[in-house]
């Protein structure tokens, strides 16, 4: 029964460009609607009709443009970044359960930020919010370069080596972060814990724009490579026979996802589950073609994170929950359910 239903869902899109277009348009409309609605919700609620008619009072306008909108758009771009990087990584590993967290990119970013907070503490106040961002970005990029190097130790790129290197690096960064947590004082500990839990608080226009300037080119680039990404799923050897330069493609995927993850982690800390489940969900609904998967994962990731963040900042208002806790709380069980369902439909 479930099998039949899932099978019908998956066979819906077939190969039509037109179908892809319809799906993407619908997802965009959904996201647009959510942006509008969540802009009105908050500690002070704004009227939707006033927003649409540009007739907000000046005070409400300030709230909308300096607080609400940056926050909402940050959720959108971070969600999109997580969705894209998840989709790309899963394609690279040829495994639907792979995740940037898995190969240590997130861990590297987190360690760099912890270092920033604890070791170079004074600089934190001086450079402001951006120091965290730069640290996460540099940490994420360094880790992915190290993993890239280690996975080619034998001269040939090997996914197994890369996974093993990822596990080792995850353990190392975890130990490093743990040590830093141990030697940190109360204030540093607070800052670190809050950051690791993931939050979109303190959103400003700059992080939104920086994030966007990284995500849009990445998405465009990966979508352009969609066909090669599909073929890579046949395995490296078979992809090479069809004429795909697998080494180049893998480098491209790693660097683009590292960029996306770095950008996301930088501005929002560690937000789990989006990168793992969103591409999975898209595949289940619309099939595995990367041409649709990459942009659809971006849109759905954006929508889901926006939903989670809206709930996170309104549920216990005027205080707010870290959104990372919320996504994991909802995402974990959902993911389990997905796995079980997939299993029963496979049999």
């Amino acid at each position, binding site marked *: 029964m479930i099998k039949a239903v899932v*099978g019908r869902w*998956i*066979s819906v899109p*077939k*190969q039509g*460009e037109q179908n892809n277009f319809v799906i993407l348009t619908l997802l965009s409309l959904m996201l647009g609607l959510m942006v509008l609605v969540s802009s009105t919700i908050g500690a002070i609620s704004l009227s939707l009709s006033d927003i649409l008619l540009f007739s907000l009072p000046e005070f409400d306008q300030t709230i909308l443009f300096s607080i609400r909108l940056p926050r909402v758009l940050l959720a959108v771009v971070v969600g999109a970044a997580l969705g894209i990087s998840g989709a790309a990584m899963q394609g690279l590993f*040829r*495994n*639907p359960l792979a995740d940037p967290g898995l190969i240590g990119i997130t861990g590297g970013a987190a360690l760099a930020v912890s270092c920033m907070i604890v070791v170079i503490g004074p600089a934190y106040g001086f450079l402001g919010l951006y120091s965290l961002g730069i640290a996460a970005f540099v940490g994420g990029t360094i880790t992915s370069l190290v993993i890239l190097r280690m996975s080619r130790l034998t001269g040939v790129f090997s996914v197994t080596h890369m996974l093993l290197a990822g596990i080792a690096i995850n353990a190392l960064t975890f130990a490093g972060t743990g040590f830093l947590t141990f030697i940190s004082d109360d204030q540093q500990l607070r800052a670190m814990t809050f950051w690791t839990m993931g939050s979109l608080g303190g959103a400003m226009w700059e992080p939104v724009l920086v994030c966007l300037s990284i995500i849009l080119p990445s998405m465009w680039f990966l979508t*352009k490579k*969609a*066909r*090669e990404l*599909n*073929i890579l*799923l*046949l*395995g490296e*050897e*078979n992809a*090479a*026979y*069809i*004429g*795909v*330069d697998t080494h180049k493609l893998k480098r491209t995927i790693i660097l683009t996802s590292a960029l996306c993850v770095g950008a996301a982690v930088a501005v929002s800390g560690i937000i789990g589950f989006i990168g793992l489940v969103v591409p999975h969900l898209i*595949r*289940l609904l619309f*099939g*595995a*073609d990367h*041409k649709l998967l990459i942009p659809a994962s971006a849109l759905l990731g954006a929508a889901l994170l926006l939903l989670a963040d809206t709930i996170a900042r309104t549920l216990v208002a005027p205080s707010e929950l870290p959104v990372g806790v919320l996504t994991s709380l909802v995402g974990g069980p959902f993911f389990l359910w997905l796995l079980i369902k997939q299993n029963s439909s*496979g049999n």
Partner: protein
Amino acid sequence: MLKAENLNFSIGEKTILDRVSLEIKQGEIFAILGPNGAGKSTLMKCLSGYEKPTRGNITLMGQAFASFSLTDLAAIRAVLTQSVSINFPFTALEVAAMGRGQFSGVGQDMRDYDIAREAMQLTEVSHLEERLISTLSGGEQQRVHMARILAQLWDQTDCILFLDEPTSALDLKHQFMLFDICRTLASQKNFAVVVILHDLQLAKRMTDQALLLDAGKIFAVGASADVINIDTVSTLYDINRSQVML
């Protein structure tokens, strides 16, 4: 069409291929036979350009392999590997169409799907095109991948096809179907077909030339009907003459 001279392939100290020379001509079906671990798949990887031999030369159409780009090669040779595992929900048709990968660039040309469908008709998997690849049986998957290989070289002539144990999961009817396709390609499109087989009877009946490989060295090479006989087989596989069935 494809010529190899004194191929050597070693990993560290271990020699997998030892001075293998061969020539494969257009229009013929060339079998590579031998016991497990004789180096058949490695030889095929060298011949198809995936692995670079440690020593020795391979020329394709009179030119060295290095002078072909990956995309050039993809347009003149296709390879069916032993097994392909796909963890993602692709339909059989999508998998078959992947063979067209590099020809139409970014866009998903409708023509690619038409070709994939025709290829699937040839390998008798048309009725499965909407099914997810992971739900198909081993033999059905093998036929879908065969269709992918055929789609890759569709409308081309003078190509070379490498098949690594293509009949391992096929029933009798589809084994014949496969060799029918190979024979047609060889005679009408001037293809060369290189095939690794374990079924010696099938090899003797269906292939033109055969190379018997033993521990990386050539044991015998020549016309299949001559080379595959009780003497060679019993010695090569180390079995009693009475056990040989040809």
